[in-house]
Protein backbone atom coordinates (compact mmCIF):
# COMPACT_ATOMS: atom_id res chain seq x y z
CA UNK A 1 0.00 0.00 0.00
CA UNK A 2 1.38 3.37 -0.89
CA UNK A 3 0.97 6.79 0.64
CA UNK A 4 0.15 8.94 -2.36
CA UNK A 5 1.60 12.35 -1.79
CA UNK A 6 3.95 13.92 0.68
CA UNK A 7 2.26 17.08 1.95
CA UNK A 8 0.00 16.99 -1.05
CA UNK A 9 2.66 16.03 -3.61
CA UNK A 10 1.02 13.42 -5.88
CA UNK A 11 4.34 12.26 -7.34
CA UNK A 12 5.50 10.33 -4.29
CA UNK A 13 4.78 6.66 -3.72
CA UNK A 14 6.51 5.93 -0.43
CA UNK A 15 4.84 2.97 1.29
CA UNK A 16 2.46 4.09 4.03
CA UNK A 17 3.96 1.85 6.69
CA UNK A 18 7.41 3.38 6.29
CA UNK A 19 8.75 5.49 9.13
CA UNK A 20 10.24 8.66 7.72
CA UNK A 21 13.76 9.63 8.79
CA UNK A 22 14.08 12.84 6.79
CA UNK A 23 11.39 14.95 5.22
CA UNK A 24 11.76 18.02 3.04
CA UNK A 25 8.65 20.17 2.91
CA UNK A 26 8.28 22.90 0.28
CA UNK A 27 11.99 23.66 0.34
CA UNK A 28 13.11 26.59 -1.79
CA UNK A 29 16.68 27.73 -2.41
CA UNK A 30 18.37 30.18 -4.77
CA UNK A 31 22.01 30.94 -5.47
CA UNK A 32 22.97 34.32 -6.92
CA UNK A 33 19.34 35.05 -7.71
CA UNK A 34 18.87 31.78 -9.58
CA UNK A 35 16.32 29.37 -8.12
CA UNK A 36 17.82 25.88 -7.68
CA UNK A 37 15.07 24.24 -5.64
CA UNK A 38 11.43 25.24 -5.95
CA UNK A 39 8.97 23.77 -3.42
CA UNK A 40 10.86 20.51 -3.11
CA UNK A 41 9.05 17.79 -1.18
CA UNK A 42 10.76 14.54 -0.36
CA UNK A 43 10.49 11.79 2.25
CA UNK A 44 13.39 9.49 3.09
CA UNK A 45 12.13 6.28 4.75
CA UNK A 46 14.03 4.94 7.75
CA UNK A 47 16.32 1.97 7.15
CA UNK A 48 15.90 2.20 3.37
CA UNK A 49 18.10 3.32 0.51
CA UNK A 50 16.82 6.40 -1.27
CA UNK A 51 18.64 7.41 -4.41
CA UNK A 52 18.42 10.94 -5.79
CA UNK A 53 19.13 11.13 -9.50
CA UNK A 54 18.96 13.86 -12.11
CA UNK A 55 21.05 15.63 -14.68
CA UNK A 56 24.18 17.53 -13.61
CA UNK A 57 23.62 20.94 -12.10
CA UNK A 58 20.01 20.25 -11.11
CA UNK A 59 20.70 20.68 -7.39
CA UNK A 60 20.97 17.07 -6.14
CA UNK A 61 23.93 17.89 -3.91
CA UNK A 62 22.10 21.00 -2.71
CA UNK A 63 19.32 18.73 -1.43
CA UNK A 64 21.92 16.65 0.38
CA UNK A 65 23.45 19.77 1.91
CA UNK A 66 20.01 20.82 3.16
CA UNK A 67 19.58 17.43 4.83
CA UNK A 68 23.00 17.79 6.44
CA UNK A 69 22.25 21.31 7.63
CA UNK A 70 25.18 22.71 5.67
CA UNK A 71 22.77 24.92 3.71
CA UNK A 72 19.61 26.51 5.09
CA UNK A 73 16.48 26.80 2.92
CA UNK A 74 15.03 30.18 2.06
CA UNK A 75 11.56 28.73 2.59
CA UNK A 76 10.21 25.40 3.76
CA UNK A 77 11.27 22.86 6.36
CA UNK A 78 13.90 20.14 6.62
CA UNK A 79 12.73 17.63 9.21
CA UNK A 80 15.24 15.11 10.53
CA UNK A 81 13.61 12.60 12.88
CA UNK A 82 10.83 15.17 13.30
CA UNK A 83 13.10 18.12 14.14
CA UNK A 84 13.23 21.08 11.77
CA UNK A 85 17.00 21.46 11.43
CA UNK A 86 16.65 24.76 9.57
CA UNK A 87 15.52 26.30 12.84
CA UNK A 88 18.09 24.71 15.15
CA UNK A 89 21.03 26.50 16.75
CA UNK A 90 24.52 25.32 15.84
CA UNK A 91 24.75 23.34 19.07
CA UNK A 92 21.41 21.62 18.52
CA UNK A 93 22.29 20.94 14.89
CA UNK A 94 25.55 19.32 16.00
CA UNK A 95 23.49 17.02 18.23
CA UNK A 96 21.37 15.93 15.26
CA UNK A 97 24.50 15.36 13.20
CA UNK A 98 25.75 12.82 15.73
CA UNK A 99 23.37 10.46 13.90
CA UNK A 100 24.93 11.19 10.50
CA UNK A 101 27.73 9.70 8.45
CA UNK A 102 28.80 11.21 5.14
CA UNK A 103 30.80 9.97 2.18
CA UNK A 104 31.69 13.06 0.18
CA UNK A 105 32.11 13.13 -3.59
CA UNK A 106 35.84 13.87 -3.22
CA UNK A 107 35.96 11.83 0.01
CA UNK A 108 37.26 14.80 2.10
CA UNK A 109 39.70 12.66 4.06
CA UNK A 110 42.06 14.60 6.32
CA UNK A 111 45.15 14.43 4.15
CA UNK A 112 47.64 15.09 6.94
CA UNK A 113 46.33 12.12 8.94
CA UNK A 114 46.84 8.40 8.44
CA UNK A 115 43.99 6.09 7.48
CA UNK A 116 43.77 4.94 11.10
CA UNK A 117 43.57 8.49 12.47
CA UNK A 118 40.97 9.46 9.88
CA UNK A 119 38.65 6.70 11.02
CA UNK A 120 39.50 7.22 14.69
CA UNK A 121 38.84 10.98 14.60
CA UNK A 122 35.06 10.92 15.20
CA UNK A 123 35.54 8.35 17.96
CA UNK A 124 38.21 10.45 19.66
CA UNK A 125 36.28 13.69 19.37
CA UNK A 126 32.76 12.51 20.02
CA UNK A 127 33.03 9.66 22.46
CA UNK A 128 34.70 8.98 25.78
CA UNK A 129 36.09 5.68 24.48
CA UNK A 130 39.56 4.60 25.57
CA UNK A 131 42.34 4.32 22.98
CA UNK A 132 42.00 0.51 23.21
CA UNK A 133 38.27 0.62 22.44
CA UNK A 134 38.92 3.05 19.61
CA UNK A 135 41.55 0.71 18.14
CA UNK A 136 39.13 -2.23 18.26
CA UNK A 137 36.39 -0.21 16.59
CA UNK A 138 38.66 1.27 13.89
CA UNK A 139 40.19 -2.09 13.02
CA UNK A 140 36.75 -3.65 12.81
CA UNK A 141 35.56 -0.94 10.40
CA UNK A 142 38.73 -1.16 8.31
CA UNK A 143 38.39 -4.93 8.11
CA UNK A 144 34.76 -4.48 7.04
CA UNK A 145 36.07 -2.34 4.16
CA UNK A 146 38.82 -4.82 3.21
CA UNK A 147 41.45 -2.31 4.32
CA UNK A 148 43.50 -4.45 6.69
CA UNK A 149 47.12 -3.30 6.67
CA UNK A 150 46.39 0.22 5.44
CA UNK A 151 46.39 1.77 8.94
CA UNK A 152 49.59 3.77 8.58
CA UNK A 153 49.12 4.93 5.02
CA UNK A 154 48.19 8.51 4.16
CA UNK A 155 45.26 9.28 1.81
CA UNK A 156 47.66 10.44 -0.94
CA UNK A 157 49.26 6.96 -0.91
CA UNK A 158 45.93 5.24 -1.65
CA UNK A 159 44.07 4.58 -4.89
CA UNK A 160 40.76 6.34 -5.51
CA UNK A 161 38.82 3.19 -4.63
CA UNK A 162 40.70 2.72 -1.36
CA UNK A 163 40.15 6.36 -0.44
CA UNK A 164 36.41 5.89 -0.91
CA UNK A 165 36.50 2.82 1.30
CA UNK A 166 38.36 4.75 4.01
CA UNK A 167 35.73 7.47 3.65
CA UNK A 168 33.00 4.88 4.12
CA UNK A 169 34.78 3.38 7.15
CA UNK A 170 34.99 6.88 8.67
CA UNK A 171 31.32 7.56 7.88
CA UNK A 172 30.35 4.33 9.65
CA UNK A 173 32.73 4.73 12.59
CA UNK A 174 30.00 5.74 15.02
CA UNK A 175 27.30 3.43 13.65
CA UNK A 176 25.17 6.34 12.39
CA UNK A 177 21.43 6.15 11.78
CA UNK A 178 21.68 7.94 8.41
CA UNK A 179 24.53 7.79 5.91
CA UNK A 180 24.73 10.23 3.00
CA UNK A 181 26.60 9.42 -0.19
CA UNK A 182 27.39 12.23 -2.62
CA UNK A 183 28.26 10.71 -6.00
CA UNK A 184 30.09 7.81 -4.32
CA UNK A 185 31.50 6.26 -7.48
CA UNK A 186 32.69 9.42 -9.23
CA UNK A 187 36.17 8.84 -10.64
CA UNK A 188 36.09 5.06 -10.11
CA UNK A 189 36.23 2.46 -12.85
CA UNK A 190 33.49 -0.17 -13.16
CA UNK A 191 35.35 -2.74 -11.03
CA UNK A 192 36.05 -0.31 -8.18
CA UNK A 193 32.47 1.01 -8.38
CA UNK A 194 31.14 -2.52 -8.02
CA UNK A 195 33.43 -3.12 -5.05
CA UNK A 196 32.13 0.00 -3.35
CA UNK A 197 28.52 -0.95 -4.07
CA UNK A 198 29.14 -4.43 -2.65
CA UNK A 199 30.57 -2.92 0.55
CA UNK A 200 27.71 -0.46 0.76
CA UNK A 201 25.14 -3.23 0.30
CA UNK A 202 26.82 -5.44 2.91
CA UNK A 203 27.16 -2.70 5.54
CA UNK A 204 23.66 -1.34 4.94
CA UNK A 205 22.14 -4.78 5.48
CA UNK A 206 24.42 -5.43 8.46
CA UNK A 207 24.00 -2.09 10.24
CA UNK A 208 20.53 -1.18 8.99
CA UNK A 209 21.22 2.50 8.45
CA UNK A 210 19.12 4.82 6.32
CA UNK A 211 21.02 5.64 3.13
CA UNK A 212 20.62 8.70 0.93
CA UNK A 213 22.62 8.44 -2.27
CA UNK A 214 23.09 11.16 -4.86
CA UNK A 215 24.21 9.41 -8.01
CA UNK A 216 24.60 9.57 -11.76
CA UNK A 217 25.20 5.86 -12.05
CA UNK A 218 21.94 4.90 -13.77
CA UNK A 219 20.75 2.14 -14.10
CA UNK A 220 23.33 0.35 -11.88
CA UNK A 221 22.31 2.32 -8.80
CA UNK A 222 18.71 1.12 -9.18
CA UNK A 223 19.77 -2.34 -8.01
CA UNK A 224 20.79 -0.93 -4.63
CA UNK A 225 17.86 1.39 -4.12
CA UNK A 226 14.55 0.96 -2.36
CA UNK A 227 13.32 4.30 -3.67
CA UNK A 228 14.44 6.37 -6.65
CA UNK A 229 13.88 10.13 -6.68
CA UNK A 230 14.23 12.24 -9.79
CA UNK A 231 15.10 15.92 -9.44
CA UNK A 232 14.50 17.90 -12.60
CA UNK A 233 13.42 21.45 -13.35
CA UNK A 234 14.02 22.42 -9.71
CA UNK A 235 11.37 20.03 -8.33
CA UNK A 236 11.10 16.38 -7.33
CA UNK A 237 9.43 14.70 -10.29
CA UNK A 238 8.81 11.46 -8.45
CA UNK A 239 9.94 9.23 -5.59
CA UNK A 240 9.13 5.53 -6.01
CA UNK A 241 10.59 2.02 -6.04
CA UNK A 242 13.00 1.46 -8.95
CA UNK A 243 10.73 -0.99 -10.84
CA UNK A 244 7.88 1.47 -10.69
CA UNK A 245 10.24 4.30 -11.68
CA UNK A 246 11.32 2.48 -14.84
CA UNK A 247 7.70 1.81 -15.80
CA UNK A 248 6.47 5.29 -14.91
CA UNK A 249 4.43 7.14 -17.53
CA UNK A 250 5.21 10.52 -16.00
CA UNK A 251 6.56 12.43 -19.03
CA UNK A 252 9.69 13.83 -17.31
CA UNK A 253 10.55 10.47 -15.72
CA UNK A 254 9.84 8.67 -18.99
CA UNK A 255 12.12 11.07 -20.86
CA UNK A 256 14.87 10.66 -18.24
CA UNK A 257 14.68 6.85 -18.34
CA UNK A 258 14.73 6.79 -22.15
CA UNK A 259 17.61 9.25 -22.36
CA UNK A 260 19.88 7.68 -19.75
CA UNK A 261 19.11 4.00 -20.16
CA UNK A 262 18.57 4.25 -23.91
CA UNK A 263 21.99 5.78 -24.31
CA UNK A 264 23.57 3.02 -22.29
CA UNK A 265 21.89 0.29 -24.31
CA UNK A 266 22.75 1.88 -27.65
CA UNK A 267 26.38 2.42 -26.65
CA UNK A 268 26.61 -1.21 -25.51
CA UNK A 269 25.16 -2.30 -28.86
CA UNK A 270 27.69 -0.14 -30.71
CA UNK A 271 30.51 -1.72 -28.72
CA UNK A 272 29.20 -5.22 -29.52
CA UNK A 273 28.94 -4.40 -33.22
CA UNK A 274 32.44 -3.00 -33.10
CA UNK A 275 33.76 -6.21 -31.44
CA UNK A 276 32.09 -8.35 -34.07
Amino acid sequence: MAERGIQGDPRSTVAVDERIAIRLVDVEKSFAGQKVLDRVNLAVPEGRTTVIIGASGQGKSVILKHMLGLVRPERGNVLVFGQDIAKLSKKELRKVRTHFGVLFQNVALFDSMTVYDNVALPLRERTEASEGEIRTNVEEKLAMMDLVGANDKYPAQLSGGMQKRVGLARALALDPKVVFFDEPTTGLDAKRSNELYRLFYRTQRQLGYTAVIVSHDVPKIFKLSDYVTLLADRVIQGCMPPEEFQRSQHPVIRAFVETTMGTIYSSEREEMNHDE
Partner: protein
Amino acid sequence: MGLFLAACLASVVRPPYKLAPIVRQIHFIGARSSFVILFTGAFTGMVLGLQGYYTLRKFGSEGLLGSAVAVSLIRELGPVLTALMVIGRAGSAICAEIGIMRNSEQIDALECMAIDPFKYLLAPKFVASVISMPLLTFIFDVVGILGGMVVGVVLLGVNQGAYLQGMYGSVVWEDIEMGIVKSLVFGLLVVWIASAKGFFLHLDRSGGFGAEGVSRVTTSAVVLSSVTILVWDYLISAIML
Protein backbone atom coordinates in the same frame (compact mmCIF):
# COMPACT_ATOMS: atom_id res chain seq x y z
CA MET B 1 35.67 38.84 10.86
CA GLY B 2 34.54 40.13 14.25
CA LEU B 3 32.05 37.32 14.73
CA PHE B 4 34.69 34.84 13.62
CA LEU B 5 37.10 36.17 16.28
CA ALA B 6 34.36 36.00 18.92
CA ALA B 7 33.56 32.39 17.93
CA CYS B 8 37.26 31.45 18.09
CA LEU B 9 37.77 33.05 21.50
CA ALA B 10 34.59 31.40 22.80
CA SER B 11 35.85 28.03 21.58
CA VAL B 12 39.15 28.61 23.43
CA VAL B 13 37.41 28.99 26.79
CA ARG B 14 34.77 26.30 26.19
CA PRO B 15 35.58 22.80 27.51
CA PRO B 16 36.85 20.20 26.84
CA TYR B 17 40.45 21.35 27.08
CA LYS B 18 42.97 19.21 25.23
CA LEU B 19 46.66 19.90 25.73
CA ALA B 20 48.13 17.77 22.93
CA PRO B 21 46.79 19.82 19.97
CA ILE B 22 48.00 23.04 21.64
CA VAL B 23 51.47 21.58 22.20
CA ARG B 24 51.57 20.47 18.54
CA GLN B 25 50.67 23.99 17.41
CA ILE B 26 53.22 25.61 19.76
CA HIS B 27 55.78 23.32 18.15
CA PHE B 28 54.66 24.41 14.69
CA ILE B 29 54.19 28.15 15.29
CA GLY B 30 56.80 28.61 18.02
CA ALA B 31 59.56 26.01 18.02
CA ARG B 32 59.81 25.73 14.26
CA SER B 33 59.99 29.51 13.90
CA SER B 34 62.85 29.79 16.40
CA PHE B 35 65.67 29.44 13.86
CA VAL B 36 64.41 32.23 11.64
CA ILE B 37 63.85 34.37 14.74
CA LEU B 38 67.41 33.69 15.99
CA PHE B 39 68.81 34.58 12.58
CA THR B 40 66.71 37.73 12.11
CA GLY B 41 67.24 38.85 15.70
CA ALA B 42 71.01 38.47 15.48
CA PHE B 43 71.34 40.44 12.25
CA THR B 44 68.88 43.13 13.33
CA GLY B 45 70.89 43.65 16.53
CA MET B 46 74.16 43.72 14.55
CA VAL B 47 72.84 46.32 12.10
CA LEU B 48 71.50 48.41 14.97
CA GLY B 49 74.91 48.17 16.65
CA LEU B 50 76.68 49.24 13.47
CA GLN B 51 74.36 52.12 12.55
CA GLY B 52 73.97 53.22 16.16
CA TYR B 53 77.72 53.32 16.71
CA TYR B 54 78.44 55.61 13.75
CA THR B 55 75.52 57.89 14.61
CA LEU B 56 76.36 58.12 18.31
CA ARG B 57 80.08 58.63 17.59
CA LYS B 58 79.24 61.95 15.92
CA PHE B 59 78.01 63.16 19.31
CA GLY B 60 80.70 61.36 21.31
CA SER B 61 78.07 59.14 22.91
CA GLU B 62 79.23 55.65 21.91
CA GLY B 63 78.61 54.57 25.48
CA LEU B 64 74.87 54.86 24.87
CA LEU B 65 74.98 52.15 22.20
CA GLY B 66 73.69 49.44 24.58
CA SER B 67 70.79 51.64 25.57
CA ALA B 68 69.89 52.49 21.95
CA VAL B 69 70.00 48.86 20.80
CA ALA B 70 68.08 47.45 23.77
CA VAL B 71 65.30 50.06 23.85
CA SER B 72 64.78 49.91 20.07
CA LEU B 73 64.55 46.15 20.16
CA ILE B 74 62.41 45.72 23.26
CA ARG B 75 59.86 48.41 22.45
CA GLU B 76 59.59 48.29 18.69
CA LEU B 77 61.72 46.09 16.50
CA GLY B 78 61.51 42.91 18.56
CA PRO B 79 57.70 42.55 18.58
CA VAL B 80 57.22 43.92 15.05
CA LEU B 81 59.92 41.93 13.27
CA THR B 82 59.04 38.76 15.19
CA ALA B 83 55.40 39.15 14.13
CA LEU B 84 56.41 39.75 10.51
CA MET B 85 58.62 36.65 10.53
CA VAL B 86 55.84 34.56 12.11
CA ILE B 87 53.40 35.84 9.48
CA GLY B 88 55.76 34.72 6.71
CA ARG B 89 56.50 31.34 8.23
CA ALA B 90 53.46 30.24 10.21
CA GLY B 91 50.66 32.68 9.30
CA SER B 92 50.86 31.85 5.61
CA ALA B 93 50.95 28.13 6.43
CA ILE B 94 47.90 28.39 8.72
CA CYS B 95 45.95 30.25 6.04
CA ALA B 96 46.91 27.79 3.30
CA GLU B 97 46.18 24.75 5.50
CA ILE B 98 42.72 25.97 6.48
CA GLY B 99 42.02 27.16 2.93
CA ILE B 100 42.86 23.76 1.49
CA MET B 101 40.70 22.11 4.14
CA ARG B 102 37.85 24.39 3.14
CA ASN B 103 38.40 23.72 -0.56
CA SER B 104 38.51 19.96 -0.18
CA GLU B 105 35.40 19.87 2.06
CA GLN B 106 37.42 18.75 5.09
CA ILE B 107 35.81 21.50 7.19
CA ASP B 108 32.37 20.41 5.98
CA ALA B 109 33.36 16.85 6.91
CA LEU B 110 34.17 18.01 10.45
CA GLU B 111 30.78 19.76 10.67
CA CYS B 112 29.02 16.64 9.41
CA MET B 113 30.81 14.52 12.01
CA ALA B 114 29.41 16.91 14.64
CA ILE B 115 32.94 18.11 15.41
CA ASP B 116 33.14 21.86 16.00
CA PRO B 117 35.82 23.16 13.59
CA PHE B 118 36.37 26.19 15.82
CA LYS B 119 37.15 24.03 18.83
CA TYR B 120 39.01 21.29 16.98
CA LEU B 121 40.87 23.26 14.33
CA LEU B 122 41.17 26.90 15.34
CA ALA B 123 41.26 27.09 19.15
CA PRO B 124 44.65 25.30 19.46
CA LYS B 125 46.15 27.66 16.86
CA PHE B 126 44.87 30.74 18.71
CA VAL B 127 46.24 29.57 22.08
CA ALA B 128 49.55 28.52 20.55
CA SER B 129 50.04 31.80 18.68
CA VAL B 130 49.33 33.94 21.74
CA ILE B 131 51.75 31.83 23.81
CA SER B 132 54.45 31.58 21.15
CA MET B 133 54.66 35.19 20.04
CA PRO B 134 55.93 36.65 23.38
CA LEU B 135 58.42 33.79 23.73
CA LEU B 136 59.75 34.31 20.21
CA THR B 137 59.92 38.07 20.84
CA PHE B 138 61.94 37.42 23.99
CA ILE B 139 64.38 35.29 21.99
CA PHE B 140 64.57 37.96 19.28
CA ASP B 141 65.31 40.71 21.84
CA VAL B 142 68.00 38.73 23.68
CA VAL B 143 69.75 37.60 20.51
CA GLY B 144 69.46 41.11 19.03
CA ILE B 145 71.05 42.71 22.12
CA LEU B 146 73.86 40.14 21.96
CA GLY B 147 74.28 40.80 18.21
CA GLY B 148 74.54 44.52 18.89
CA MET B 149 77.09 43.83 21.60
CA VAL B 150 79.21 41.65 19.31
CA VAL B 151 79.39 44.42 16.71
CA GLY B 152 79.74 47.30 19.18
CA VAL B 153 82.08 45.75 21.72
CA VAL B 154 84.04 43.13 19.77
CA LEU B 155 84.29 44.75 16.33
CA LEU B 156 84.05 48.48 17.03
CA GLY B 157 85.70 48.67 20.43
CA VAL B 158 82.91 50.08 22.61
CA ASN B 159 83.54 49.41 26.27
CA GLN B 160 81.63 46.31 27.38
CA GLY B 161 80.78 47.78 30.77
CA ALA B 162 79.45 50.94 29.14
CA TYR B 163 77.33 48.90 26.71
CA LEU B 164 75.78 46.80 29.47
CA GLN B 165 75.45 49.66 31.94
CA GLY B 166 73.78 51.84 29.30
CA MET B 167 71.30 49.05 28.68
CA TYR B 168 70.56 48.40 32.37
CA GLY B 169 70.20 52.11 33.04
CA SER B 170 67.77 52.90 30.28
CA VAL B 171 65.50 49.87 29.98
CA VAL B 172 62.63 50.20 32.45
CA TRP B 173 59.67 47.94 33.20
CA GLU B 174 57.36 50.06 30.98
CA ASP B 175 59.54 49.18 27.96
CA ILE B 176 59.28 45.48 28.68
CA GLU B 177 55.56 45.80 29.37
CA MET B 178 55.05 47.49 26.00
CA GLY B 179 56.96 44.70 24.27
CA ILE B 180 54.85 42.05 26.00
CA VAL B 181 51.54 43.78 25.21
CA LYS B 182 52.53 44.21 21.58
CA SER B 183 53.62 40.61 21.16
CA LEU B 184 50.40 39.30 22.73
CA VAL B 185 48.25 41.52 20.51
CA PHE B 186 50.31 40.64 17.42
CA GLY B 187 50.01 36.93 18.24
CA LEU B 188 46.24 37.28 18.25
CA LEU B 189 46.12 39.43 15.11
CA VAL B 190 48.32 37.07 13.07
CA VAL B 191 46.34 33.92 13.85
CA TRP B 192 43.01 35.74 13.54
CA ILE B 193 43.66 37.12 10.05
CA ALA B 194 45.39 33.98 8.74
CA SER B 195 42.65 31.65 10.02
CA ALA B 196 39.76 33.83 8.90
CA LYS B 197 41.14 34.26 5.38
CA GLY B 198 41.49 30.49 4.97
CA PHE B 199 38.21 29.66 6.71
CA PHE B 200 36.16 31.98 4.49
CA LEU B 201 37.92 31.03 1.27
CA HIS B 202 34.63 29.81 -0.21
CA LEU B 203 33.02 33.22 0.32
CA ASP B 204 35.82 35.08 -1.47
CA ARG B 205 34.43 36.08 -4.85
CA SER B 206 37.37 38.15 -6.09
CA GLY B 207 39.01 35.47 -8.19
CA GLY B 208 39.45 31.79 -8.96
CA PHE B 209 38.81 28.83 -6.71
CA GLY B 210 40.96 25.76 -6.10
CA ALA B 211 44.71 26.19 -5.89
CA GLU B 212 44.49 29.72 -7.25
CA GLY B 213 41.99 30.63 -4.56
CA VAL B 214 44.28 29.28 -1.82
CA SER B 215 47.22 31.18 -3.26
CA ARG B 216 45.19 34.39 -3.43
CA VAL B 217 43.85 34.26 0.12
CA THR B 218 47.29 33.34 1.47
CA THR B 219 48.87 36.35 -0.22
CA SER B 220 46.03 38.50 1.01
CA ALA B 221 46.43 37.15 4.56
CA VAL B 222 50.17 37.91 4.59
CA VAL B 223 49.71 41.44 3.24
CA LEU B 224 46.77 42.26 5.50
CA SER B 225 48.48 40.81 8.61
CA SER B 226 51.69 42.74 7.92
CA VAL B 227 49.90 46.05 7.43
CA THR B 228 47.69 45.44 10.46
CA ILE B 229 50.74 44.73 12.61
CA LEU B 230 52.31 48.04 11.61
CA VAL B 231 49.10 49.97 12.28
CA TRP B 232 48.58 48.32 15.66
CA ASP B 233 52.23 48.88 16.55
CA TYR B 234 51.67 52.60 16.14
CA LEU B 235 48.36 52.51 18.05
CA ILE B 236 49.78 50.59 21.01
CA SER B 237 52.86 52.85 21.14
CA ALA B 238 50.64 55.94 21.05
CA ILE B 239 48.42 54.58 23.83
CA MET B 240 51.20 53.32 26.10
CA LEU B 241 53.74 56.13 25.73
